[in-house]
Protein backbone atom coordinates (compact mmCIF):
# COMPACT_ATOMS: atom_id res chain seq x y z
CA UNK A 1 0.00 0.00 0.00
CA UNK A 2 1.30 3.47 -0.77
CA UNK A 3 2.23 5.19 2.48
CA UNK A 4 1.00 8.72 3.15
CA UNK A 5 3.41 11.09 4.84
CA UNK A 6 2.76 11.02 8.56
CA UNK A 7 1.15 14.11 10.04
CA UNK A 8 3.12 16.15 12.53
CA UNK A 9 1.91 19.32 14.16
CA UNK A 10 4.27 19.82 17.09
CA UNK A 11 7.10 21.64 15.39
CA UNK A 12 9.19 23.65 17.75
CA UNK A 13 9.06 26.81 15.71
CA UNK A 14 6.53 27.76 13.10
CA UNK A 15 8.42 28.31 9.91
CA UNK A 16 6.56 31.47 9.00
CA UNK A 17 8.06 33.20 12.00
CA UNK A 18 11.64 32.15 11.48
CA UNK A 19 12.59 35.42 9.90
CA UNK A 20 12.14 37.42 13.05
CA UNK A 21 11.10 36.34 16.53
CA UNK A 22 13.24 33.28 16.77
CA UNK A 23 16.43 34.87 15.57
CA UNK A 24 17.94 35.68 18.90
CA UNK A 25 18.13 32.27 20.42
CA UNK A 26 15.20 32.87 22.71
CA UNK A 27 13.86 29.50 21.69
CA UNK A 28 16.45 27.72 23.72
CA UNK A 29 14.18 28.68 26.59
CA UNK A 30 11.46 26.69 24.90
CA UNK A 31 13.70 23.65 25.13
CA UNK A 32 13.55 23.73 28.94
CA UNK A 33 9.78 23.78 28.69
CA UNK A 34 9.43 20.96 26.22
CA UNK A 35 11.96 18.78 27.98
CA UNK A 36 9.90 19.12 31.15
CA UNK A 37 6.84 18.09 29.17
CA UNK A 38 8.69 15.13 27.69
CA UNK A 39 9.62 13.95 31.17
CA UNK A 40 6.02 14.29 32.25
CA UNK A 41 4.80 12.32 29.23
CA UNK A 42 7.26 9.53 29.93
CA UNK A 43 6.22 9.36 33.55
CA UNK A 44 2.61 9.03 32.41
CA UNK A 45 3.60 6.33 29.92
CA UNK A 46 5.28 4.39 32.69
CA UNK A 47 1.99 4.40 34.57
CA UNK A 48 0.15 3.07 31.56
CA UNK A 49 2.47 0.41 30.18
CA UNK A 50 4.68 -2.46 31.20
CA UNK A 51 8.22 -1.28 30.75
CA UNK A 52 11.87 -1.69 31.59
CA UNK A 53 14.42 1.10 31.55
CA UNK A 54 16.71 1.18 28.54
CA UNK A 55 20.20 2.30 29.35
CA UNK A 56 22.97 3.12 26.93
CA UNK A 57 20.53 4.07 24.18
CA UNK A 58 21.63 6.44 21.45
CA UNK A 59 19.92 8.13 18.54
CA UNK A 60 22.05 8.15 15.42
CA UNK A 61 21.22 10.96 13.02
CA UNK A 62 22.05 10.04 9.44
CA UNK A 63 22.27 12.20 6.39
CA UNK A 64 22.42 9.61 3.61
CA UNK A 65 19.67 8.55 3.59
CA UNK A 66 18.20 11.01 6.05
CA UNK A 67 16.77 9.52 9.17
CA UNK A 68 17.24 8.37 12.70
CA UNK A 69 18.27 5.06 14.17
CA UNK A 70 17.75 4.24 17.82
CA UNK A 71 20.39 1.78 18.97
CA UNK A 72 20.22 0.39 22.47
CA UNK A 73 21.46 -2.50 24.54
CA UNK A 74 18.59 -4.94 24.94
CA UNK A 75 17.77 -4.57 28.63
CA UNK A 76 16.60 -8.15 29.20
CA UNK A 77 18.29 -10.31 26.56
CA UNK A 78 21.68 -10.50 24.88
CA UNK A 79 22.13 -8.29 21.87
CA UNK A 80 21.54 -4.78 20.66
CA UNK A 81 18.24 -3.33 19.49
CA UNK A 82 18.31 -1.38 16.22
CA UNK A 83 15.20 0.60 15.19
CA UNK A 84 15.46 2.82 12.15
CA UNK A 85 13.18 5.46 10.73
CA UNK A 86 14.12 6.98 7.42
CA UNK A 87 10.75 8.42 6.49
CA UNK A 88 10.13 6.47 3.29
CA UNK A 89 9.98 2.64 3.40
CA UNK A 90 13.12 2.26 1.30
CA UNK A 91 15.13 4.70 3.37
CA UNK A 92 13.98 3.08 6.61
CA UNK A 93 15.02 -0.34 5.30
CA UNK A 94 18.41 1.02 4.25
CA UNK A 95 19.01 2.61 7.63
CA UNK A 96 17.89 -0.53 9.45
CA UNK A 97 20.26 -2.66 7.39
CA UNK A 98 23.20 -0.31 7.80
CA UNK A 99 22.56 0.00 11.55
CA UNK A 100 22.50 -3.77 11.99
CA UNK A 101 25.56 -4.15 9.79
CA UNK A 102 27.45 -1.61 11.85
CA UNK A 103 26.57 -3.39 15.09
CA UNK A 104 27.77 -6.69 13.63
CA UNK A 105 30.96 -5.12 12.30
CA UNK A 106 31.83 -3.57 15.64
CA UNK A 107 31.02 -6.83 17.43
CA UNK A 108 33.32 -8.72 15.08
CA UNK A 109 36.10 -6.19 15.59
CA UNK A 110 35.84 -6.81 19.31
CA UNK A 111 35.62 -10.57 19.02
CA UNK A 112 32.09 -10.65 20.41
CA UNK A 113 30.16 -13.54 18.97
CA UNK A 114 26.53 -13.18 17.96
CA UNK A 115 24.29 -15.18 20.30
CA UNK A 116 22.62 -18.20 18.71
CA UNK A 117 18.85 -18.22 18.98
CA UNK A 118 17.57 -21.16 21.00
Amino acid at each position, binding site marked *: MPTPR*RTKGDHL*IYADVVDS*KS*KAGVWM*GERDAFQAKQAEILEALKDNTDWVPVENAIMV*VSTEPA*GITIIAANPTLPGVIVLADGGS*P*EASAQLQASGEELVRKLMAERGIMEEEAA
Partner: protein
Amino acid sequence: MASSQLLWGKYIRYDRDGEAALLDPVTLDSVYLDRGEVTDLSAVPPTATHTALAELGFTPDGPDLDRREALRSRLQRLGLEPLPVRISGLRIVLTDACNMKCSYCFVETNTGKPDMTEQELADGLTYLFETNAGRDEVAIQWFGGEPTTRFDLMQRGDELADALAEQHDVQRVRRTVVTNGARITDAMIDHFSRYRYGVGISVDGPPSVNSEHRRLLGGQPADDRIRRNVGRLLDADGIHVGCNLTPTPANIGRLAETVKWIIDELGLKFIYANTPIPASGRWTVDGTELAEELYQARLVALGRGGMMFSVLDRAFQALDRRRPMLFDHMQSDRTLNAALLPGSRVSLCDINFTEPAFLHTLEELRADPALLGGVAKEIAPIPECGECPALAICGGPSRNEQLLIAGDRPDPQMCAFYQSTVEIAVWDSTGLQ
Protein backbone atom coordinates in the same frame (compact mmCIF):
# COMPACT_ATOMS: atom_id res chain seq x y z
CA MET B 1 19.84 9.25 -8.08
CA ALA B 2 16.81 11.53 -7.63
CA SER B 3 14.61 13.12 -10.29
CA SER B 4 11.14 14.58 -10.61
CA GLN B 5 8.38 14.78 -13.20
CA LEU B 6 4.69 15.59 -13.40
CA LEU B 7 2.19 12.75 -12.92
CA TRP B 8 -1.30 13.02 -14.40
CA GLY B 9 -0.67 16.69 -15.08
CA LYS B 10 -1.02 17.69 -11.43
CA TYR B 11 1.19 15.75 -9.03
CA ILE B 12 4.92 16.14 -8.66
CA ARG B 13 6.52 12.73 -8.82
CA TYR B 14 9.96 12.35 -7.25
CA ASP B 15 11.95 9.21 -8.00
CA ARG B 16 14.91 7.95 -5.99
CA ASP B 17 16.61 4.56 -6.02
CA GLY B 18 13.58 2.80 -7.41
CA GLU B 19 11.03 4.23 -4.97
CA ALA B 20 8.87 7.30 -5.58
CA ALA B 21 7.04 10.02 -3.72
CA LEU B 22 4.02 11.91 -5.05
CA LEU B 23 3.22 15.44 -3.95
CA ASP B 24 0.09 17.47 -4.54
CA PRO B 25 1.57 20.99 -4.63
CA VAL B 26 -1.76 22.59 -3.73
CA THR B 27 -3.06 20.37 -0.90
CA LEU B 28 0.47 19.37 0.15
CA ASP B 29 -0.57 15.76 0.53
CA SER B 30 2.28 13.39 -0.23
CA VAL B 31 2.63 9.65 -0.45
CA TYR B 32 5.46 7.13 -0.81
CA LEU B 33 5.54 4.25 -3.25
CA ASP B 34 7.92 1.33 -2.87
CA ARG B 35 9.60 -0.37 -5.82
CA GLY B 36 6.70 -2.73 -6.48
CA GLU B 37 4.19 0.08 -6.39
CA VAL B 38 6.29 2.16 -8.74
CA THR B 39 6.22 -0.72 -11.23
CA ASP B 40 2.50 -1.16 -10.64
CA LEU B 41 1.85 2.51 -11.30
CA SER B 42 3.31 2.25 -14.78
CA ALA B 43 1.04 -0.68 -15.67
CA VAL B 44 -2.36 -0.28 -17.34
CA PRO B 45 -4.83 1.01 -14.75
CA PRO B 46 -6.60 0.13 -12.60
CA THR B 47 -3.94 -1.70 -10.60
CA ALA B 48 -3.93 -2.19 -6.85
CA THR B 49 -1.65 0.83 -6.59
CA HIS B 50 -3.99 3.01 -8.66
CA THR B 51 -6.87 1.97 -6.44
CA ALA B 52 -4.92 2.57 -3.23
CA LEU B 53 -3.79 5.97 -4.47
CA ALA B 54 -7.37 6.90 -5.34
CA GLU B 55 -8.38 6.05 -1.78
CA LEU B 56 -5.72 8.48 -0.61
CA GLY B 57 -7.05 11.17 -2.94
CA PHE B 58 -4.50 10.80 -5.74
CA THR B 59 -6.46 10.30 -8.96
CA PRO B 60 -5.73 10.95 -12.64
CA ASP B 61 -9.06 12.72 -13.15
CA GLY B 62 -10.59 15.74 -11.48
CA PRO B 63 -11.16 19.34 -12.45
CA ASP B 64 -8.53 20.91 -14.64
CA LEU B 65 -8.03 23.89 -12.33
CA ASP B 66 -5.40 26.55 -12.61
CA ARG B 67 -3.13 25.69 -9.68
CA ARG B 68 -2.57 29.30 -8.67
CA GLU B 69 -6.33 29.75 -8.42
CA ALA B 70 -6.64 26.46 -6.58
CA LEU B 71 -4.07 27.63 -4.05
CA ARG B 72 -5.81 30.97 -3.55
CA SER B 73 -9.11 29.15 -2.96
CA ARG B 74 -7.44 26.85 -0.48
CA LEU B 75 -5.88 29.75 1.39
CA GLN B 76 -9.29 31.33 1.62
CA ARG B 77 -10.88 28.12 2.90
CA LEU B 78 -8.14 27.79 5.52
CA GLY B 79 -8.54 31.41 6.56
CA LEU B 80 -4.95 32.18 5.61
CA GLU B 81 -4.96 35.83 4.63
CA PRO B 82 -1.91 37.79 3.57
CA LEU B 83 -3.04 40.96 5.35
CA PRO B 84 -1.46 41.51 8.76
CA VAL B 85 -3.86 42.37 11.58
CA ARG B 86 -1.54 44.36 13.83
CA ILE B 87 2.06 44.86 14.89
CA SER B 88 2.89 42.55 17.80
CA GLY B 89 6.62 43.01 17.92
CA LEU B 90 9.19 45.67 17.23
CA ARG B 91 12.73 45.28 16.03
CA ILE B 92 14.07 48.46 17.55
CA VAL B 93 16.86 49.89 15.46
CA LEU B 94 18.58 52.09 18.04
CA THR B 95 21.47 53.24 15.92
CA ASP B 96 23.30 52.54 12.72
CA ALA B 97 26.60 52.84 14.56
CA CYS B 98 28.48 49.56 14.58
CA ASN B 99 31.90 48.49 15.79
CA MET B 100 32.13 46.01 12.94
CA LYS B 101 31.98 46.24 9.18
CA CYS B 102 30.40 43.17 7.64
CA SER B 103 30.48 43.05 3.89
CA TYR B 104 26.95 41.66 3.45
CA CYS B 105 25.06 43.68 6.07
CA PHE B 106 21.68 44.84 4.80
CA VAL B 107 21.92 47.90 7.04
CA GLU B 108 23.93 50.93 5.96
CA THR B 109 26.07 51.43 9.05
CA ASN B 110 28.05 54.32 10.54
CA THR B 111 26.41 56.95 8.36
CA GLY B 112 26.51 59.58 11.10
CA LYS B 113 22.72 59.79 11.18
CA PRO B 114 21.28 60.46 14.63
CA ASP B 115 20.51 57.56 16.93
CA MET B 116 17.02 56.97 18.24
CA THR B 117 16.10 59.43 20.98
CA GLU B 118 14.57 58.43 24.31
CA GLN B 119 11.35 60.13 23.27
CA GLU B 120 11.21 58.25 19.96
CA LEU B 121 11.81 55.00 21.83
CA ALA B 122 9.07 55.82 24.32
CA ASP B 123 6.65 56.72 21.53
CA GLY B 124 7.34 53.47 19.68
CA LEU B 125 6.94 51.31 22.76
CA THR B 126 3.76 53.11 23.74
CA TYR B 127 2.31 52.37 20.32
CA LEU B 128 3.31 48.70 20.62
CA PHE B 129 1.72 48.21 24.02
CA GLU B 130 -1.39 50.24 23.21
CA THR B 131 -1.91 48.16 20.09
CA ASN B 132 -1.56 44.93 22.04
CA ALA B 133 -3.47 45.88 25.18
CA GLY B 134 -4.81 42.81 26.97
CA ARG B 135 -2.73 40.41 24.87
CA ASP B 136 -0.49 37.62 26.11
CA GLU B 137 2.77 38.80 24.68
CA VAL B 138 4.67 41.43 22.78
CA ALA B 139 8.19 41.07 21.44
CA ILE B 140 11.00 43.57 21.55
CA GLN B 141 14.20 42.96 19.69
CA TRP B 142 17.11 45.38 20.04
CA PHE B 143 18.88 45.88 16.75
CA GLY B 144 21.32 48.19 15.03
CA GLY B 145 24.03 48.82 13.84
CA GLU B 146 25.31 47.27 17.03
CA PRO B 147 22.56 47.84 19.60
CA THR B 148 24.84 47.45 22.60
CA THR B 149 26.55 50.71 21.61
CA ARG B 150 23.35 52.25 23.00
CA PHE B 151 22.96 50.02 26.02
CA ASP B 152 21.63 53.04 27.90
CA LEU B 153 18.59 53.07 25.58
CA MET B 154 18.11 49.33 25.96
CA GLN B 155 18.00 49.73 29.75
CA ARG B 156 15.63 52.65 29.53
CA GLY B 157 13.42 50.80 27.06
CA ASP B 158 13.23 47.65 29.17
CA GLU B 159 12.17 49.62 32.23
CA LEU B 160 9.57 51.45 30.20
CA ALA B 161 8.32 48.23 28.65
CA ASP B 162 7.64 46.80 32.11
CA ALA B 163 5.64 49.87 33.06
CA LEU B 164 3.71 49.83 29.78
CA ALA B 165 2.98 46.10 30.08
CA GLU B 166 1.41 46.70 33.45
CA GLN B 167 -0.48 49.75 32.24
CA HIS B 168 -1.88 47.96 29.18
CA ASP B 169 -2.34 44.53 30.74
CA VAL B 170 0.15 42.73 28.49
CA GLN B 171 1.16 39.49 30.20
CA ARG B 172 4.67 38.98 28.88
CA VAL B 173 7.42 40.86 27.10
CA ARG B 174 9.79 38.71 25.07
CA ARG B 175 13.14 40.44 24.86
CA THR B 176 15.91 39.64 22.46
CA VAL B 177 18.99 41.34 21.13
CA VAL B 178 20.92 40.73 17.96
CA THR B 179 24.57 41.50 18.59
CA ASN B 180 27.96 40.78 17.11
CA GLY B 181 29.09 39.87 20.63
CA ALA B 182 32.29 41.88 20.40
CA ARG B 183 31.52 44.29 23.25
CA ILE B 184 29.61 42.66 26.07
CA THR B 185 30.11 44.21 29.51
CA ASP B 186 29.33 42.74 32.92
CA ALA B 187 26.51 45.27 33.28
CA MET B 188 24.96 44.01 30.04
CA ILE B 189 25.16 40.40 31.20
CA ASP B 190 23.47 41.33 34.48
CA HIS B 191 20.76 43.15 32.57
CA PHE B 192 20.19 40.35 30.07
CA SER B 193 20.02 37.88 32.92
CA ARG B 194 17.55 39.97 34.88
CA TYR B 195 15.21 40.29 31.90
CA ARG B 196 15.78 36.73 30.67
CA TYR B 197 16.98 37.85 27.28
CA GLY B 198 17.43 35.80 24.19
CA VAL B 199 20.82 36.86 22.87
CA GLY B 200 21.52 36.12 19.23
CA ILE B 201 25.21 36.28 18.40
CA SER B 202 25.92 36.88 14.74
CA VAL B 203 28.74 34.52 13.83
CA ASP B 204 29.39 32.86 10.50
CA GLY B 205 31.75 30.13 11.63
CA PRO B 206 35.31 29.51 12.81
CA PRO B 207 37.75 32.42 12.60
CA SER B 208 38.89 31.55 9.09
CA VAL B 209 35.28 31.82 7.89
CA ASN B 210 33.93 34.50 10.20
CA SER B 211 36.74 36.96 9.57
CA GLU B 212 36.18 36.69 5.82
CA HIS B 213 33.13 38.95 6.00
CA ARG B 214 32.92 40.04 9.64
CA ARG B 215 35.69 42.26 10.95
CA LEU B 216 36.02 45.16 13.35
CA LEU B 217 35.92 48.63 11.86
CA GLY B 218 39.72 48.79 11.95
CA GLY B 219 39.91 45.62 9.86
CA GLN B 220 41.11 43.26 12.59
CA PRO B 221 39.18 40.09 13.43
CA ALA B 222 37.14 39.95 16.62
CA ASP B 223 36.86 36.20 16.97
CA ASP B 224 38.76 35.72 20.23
CA ARG B 225 36.80 38.48 21.87
CA ILE B 226 33.47 37.10 20.66
CA ARG B 227 34.35 33.64 21.86
CA ARG B 228 35.20 34.89 25.35
CA ASN B 229 31.97 36.86 25.49
CA VAL B 230 29.87 33.91 24.36
CA GLY B 231 31.39 31.91 27.21
CA ARG B 232 30.49 34.64 29.71
CA LEU B 233 26.92 34.79 28.41
CA LEU B 234 26.56 31.01 28.58
CA ASP B 235 27.80 31.02 32.16
CA ALA B 236 25.15 33.52 33.24
CA ASP B 237 21.77 32.41 34.55
CA GLY B 238 18.59 33.12 32.65
CA ILE B 239 20.09 34.09 29.29
CA HIS B 240 19.28 32.04 26.22
CA VAL B 241 22.16 32.36 23.82
CA GLY B 242 21.97 31.37 20.18
CA CYS B 243 23.80 31.95 16.96
CA ASN B 244 22.61 33.84 13.90
CA LEU B 245 24.48 32.30 11.02
CA THR B 246 24.55 33.97 7.64
CA PRO B 247 25.28 31.70 4.69
CA THR B 248 28.00 33.42 2.66
CA PRO B 249 30.34 32.36 -0.12
CA ALA B 250 32.88 31.77 2.68
CA ASN B 251 30.86 29.12 4.48
CA ILE B 252 28.73 27.67 1.68
CA GLY B 253 30.32 24.32 1.04
CA ARG B 254 31.35 24.22 4.70
CA LEU B 255 28.05 24.77 6.51
CA ALA B 256 28.07 21.37 8.21
CA GLU B 257 31.62 21.94 9.40
CA THR B 258 30.66 25.45 10.48
CA VAL B 259 27.72 24.22 12.51
CA LYS B 260 29.91 21.56 14.11
CA TRP B 261 32.34 24.27 15.18
CA ILE B 262 29.58 26.52 16.52
CA ILE B 263 28.21 23.70 18.69
CA ASP B 264 31.44 22.00 19.75
CA GLU B 265 33.81 24.93 20.05
CA LEU B 266 31.63 27.96 20.63
CA GLY B 267 29.16 26.05 22.79
CA LEU B 268 26.02 27.43 21.11
CA LYS B 269 23.37 24.80 20.58
CA PHE B 270 20.74 26.93 18.94
CA ILE B 271 21.51 28.10 15.44
CA TYR B 272 19.35 30.14 13.16
CA ALA B 273 20.52 30.39 9.57
CA ASN B 274 19.49 33.64 7.95
CA THR B 275 17.67 33.62 4.64
CA PRO B 276 19.57 35.28 1.81
CA ILE B 277 18.44 38.85 1.19
CA PRO B 278 19.03 40.00 -2.39
CA ALA B 279 20.25 43.39 -1.19
CA SER B 280 22.38 43.76 -4.33
CA GLY B 281 19.38 43.01 -6.54
CA ARG B 282 20.02 39.28 -6.85
CA TRP B 283 20.74 36.15 -4.83
CA THR B 284 24.47 35.71 -4.48
CA VAL B 285 24.36 32.04 -3.46
CA ASP B 286 23.39 28.94 -5.41
CA GLY B 287 19.87 28.09 -4.26
CA THR B 288 20.07 24.32 -4.71
CA GLU B 289 23.44 24.14 -3.02
CA LEU B 290 22.21 26.27 -0.13
CA ALA B 291 19.16 24.09 0.47
CA GLU B 292 21.26 20.94 0.51
CA GLU B 293 23.85 22.52 2.78
CA LEU B 294 21.23 23.74 5.22
CA TYR B 295 19.77 20.28 5.34
CA GLN B 296 23.08 18.57 5.99
CA ALA B 297 23.96 21.16 8.59
CA ARG B 298 20.58 20.72 10.28
CA LEU B 299 21.22 17.01 10.70
CA VAL B 300 24.74 17.63 11.94
CA ALA B 301 23.28 19.99 14.56
CA LEU B 302 20.68 17.45 15.62
CA GLY B 303 23.34 14.77 15.83
CA ARG B 304 25.28 16.93 18.27
CA GLY B 305 22.35 17.77 20.50
CA GLY B 306 21.77 21.16 18.91
CA MET B 307 18.92 22.70 16.95
CA MET B 308 19.22 24.50 13.67
CA PHE B 309 16.44 26.39 12.04
CA SER B 310 16.19 28.08 8.71
CA VAL B 311 13.60 28.82 6.06
CA LEU B 312 14.13 25.19 5.01
CA ASP B 313 11.84 24.32 7.93
CA ARG B 314 8.98 25.88 6.03
CA ALA B 315 8.91 22.94 3.65
CA PHE B 316 8.98 20.36 6.44
CA GLN B 317 6.21 22.04 8.35
CA ALA B 318 4.06 22.64 5.29
CA LEU B 319 4.27 18.98 4.28
CA ASP B 320 3.88 17.65 7.82
CA ARG B 321 0.81 19.80 8.47
CA ARG B 322 -0.62 19.89 4.91
CA ARG B 323 -0.77 23.62 5.35
CA PRO B 324 0.60 26.35 3.08
CA MET B 325 3.51 28.20 4.67
CA LEU B 326 4.12 31.00 2.28
CA PHE B 327 3.86 34.28 4.13
CA ASP B 328 7.12 36.05 4.74
CA HIS B 329 7.72 38.38 7.69
CA MET B 330 4.26 37.73 9.12
CA GLN B 331 3.84 35.70 12.32
CA SER B 332 1.60 32.66 12.55
CA ASP B 333 -1.12 34.75 14.23
CA ARG B 334 -1.12 37.19 11.29
CA THR B 335 0.72 39.84 13.23
CA LEU B 336 3.82 41.66 12.15
CA ASN B 337 7.22 42.19 13.62
CA ALA B 338 7.97 45.64 12.27
CA ALA B 339 11.06 47.78 12.66
CA LEU B 340 11.04 50.93 14.76
CA LEU B 341 13.57 53.33 13.31
CA PRO B 342 15.19 56.55 14.50
CA GLY B 343 13.17 59.57 13.46
CA SER B 344 9.82 58.12 14.68
CA ARG B 345 9.35 55.96 11.62
CA VAL B 346 8.26 52.36 11.36
CA SER B 347 9.23 50.01 8.55
CA LEU B 348 6.63 47.31 7.94
CA CYS B 349 9.44 45.03 6.83
CA ASP B 350 11.93 44.20 9.55
CA ILE B 351 14.76 43.53 7.11
CA ASN B 352 14.40 46.66 5.00
CA PHE B 353 14.75 50.02 6.73
CA THR B 354 14.90 52.29 3.70
CA GLU B 355 12.19 51.33 1.23
CA PRO B 356 9.68 54.22 1.18
CA ALA B 357 6.77 51.85 0.48
CA PHE B 358 7.30 50.27 3.91
CA LEU B 359 7.91 53.45 5.91
CA HIS B 360 5.21 55.12 7.98
CA THR B 361 4.99 57.30 11.03
CA LEU B 362 3.32 56.04 14.18
CA GLU B 363 0.57 58.59 13.64
CA GLU B 364 -0.12 57.26 10.14
CA LEU B 365 -0.34 53.69 11.44
CA ARG B 366 -2.64 54.72 14.26
CA ALA B 367 -4.89 56.62 11.88
CA ASP B 368 -5.00 53.91 9.24
CA PRO B 369 -4.13 50.36 10.36
CA ALA B 370 -4.91 49.16 6.82
CA LEU B 371 -1.48 50.55 5.90
CA LEU B 372 -0.06 47.29 7.30
CA GLY B 373 -1.28 45.72 4.07
CA GLY B 374 1.62 47.47 2.33
CA VAL B 375 3.85 44.52 3.20
CA ALA B 376 1.29 41.89 2.20
CA LYS B 377 2.47 39.33 -0.27
CA GLU B 378 0.92 38.88 -3.70
CA ILE B 379 0.43 35.14 -3.90
CA ALA B 380 2.04 33.37 -6.86
CA PRO B 381 2.39 36.52 -8.98
CA ILE B 382 3.61 34.95 -12.21
CA PRO B 383 2.12 32.06 -14.26
CA GLU B 384 5.26 29.94 -13.73
CA CYS B 385 4.42 29.80 -10.01
CA GLY B 386 1.48 27.59 -10.99
CA GLU B 387 3.88 24.99 -12.36
CA CYS B 388 6.20 25.07 -9.37
CA PRO B 389 6.40 22.27 -6.77
CA ALA B 390 6.99 24.96 -4.13
CA LEU B 391 3.78 26.82 -5.01
CA ALA B 392 2.31 26.60 -1.50
CA ILE B 393 5.62 26.81 0.32
CA CYS B 394 7.35 29.69 -1.42
CA GLY B 395 4.28 31.36 -2.88
CA GLY B 396 6.39 33.74 -4.92
CA PRO B 397 8.66 36.57 -3.87
CA SER B 398 7.81 38.69 -0.83
CA ARG B 399 7.10 42.39 -1.27
CA ASN B 400 10.62 43.07 -0.05
CA GLU B 401 12.13 40.59 -2.47
CA GLN B 402 10.12 42.13 -5.32
CA LEU B 403 11.36 45.60 -4.45
CA LEU B 404 14.97 44.49 -4.12
CA ILE B 405 15.03 42.61 -7.41
CA ALA B 406 12.88 45.29 -9.06
CA GLY B 407 10.21 43.02 -10.47
CA ASP B 408 7.66 40.27 -9.95
CA ARG B 409 9.85 37.58 -11.42
CA PRO B 410 11.70 35.75 -8.66
CA ASP B 411 15.44 35.40 -8.75
CA PRO B 412 16.16 31.99 -10.36
CA GLN B 413 18.29 31.02 -7.36
CA MET B 414 15.37 31.72 -5.05
CA CYS B 415 13.20 29.42 -7.15
CA ALA B 416 15.91 26.76 -7.14
CA PHE B 417 16.23 27.10 -3.39
CA TYR B 418 12.55 26.61 -2.59
CA GLN B 419 12.13 23.81 -5.12
CA SER B 420 15.08 22.03 -3.53
CA THR B 421 13.69 22.50 -0.02
CA VAL B 422 10.47 20.80 -1.12
CA GLU B 423 12.29 17.84 -2.62
CA ILE B 424 14.44 17.49 0.49
CA ALA B 425 11.43 17.61 2.78
CA VAL B 426 9.44 15.17 0.65
CA TRP B 427 12.14 12.56 1.18
CA ASP B 428 12.50 13.15 4.91
CA SER B 429 9.38 12.58 6.93
CA THR B 430 11.14 11.61 10.12
CA GLY B 431 9.75 14.69 11.85
CA LEU B 432 12.93 15.30 13.76
CA GLN B 433 12.58 18.98 14.51
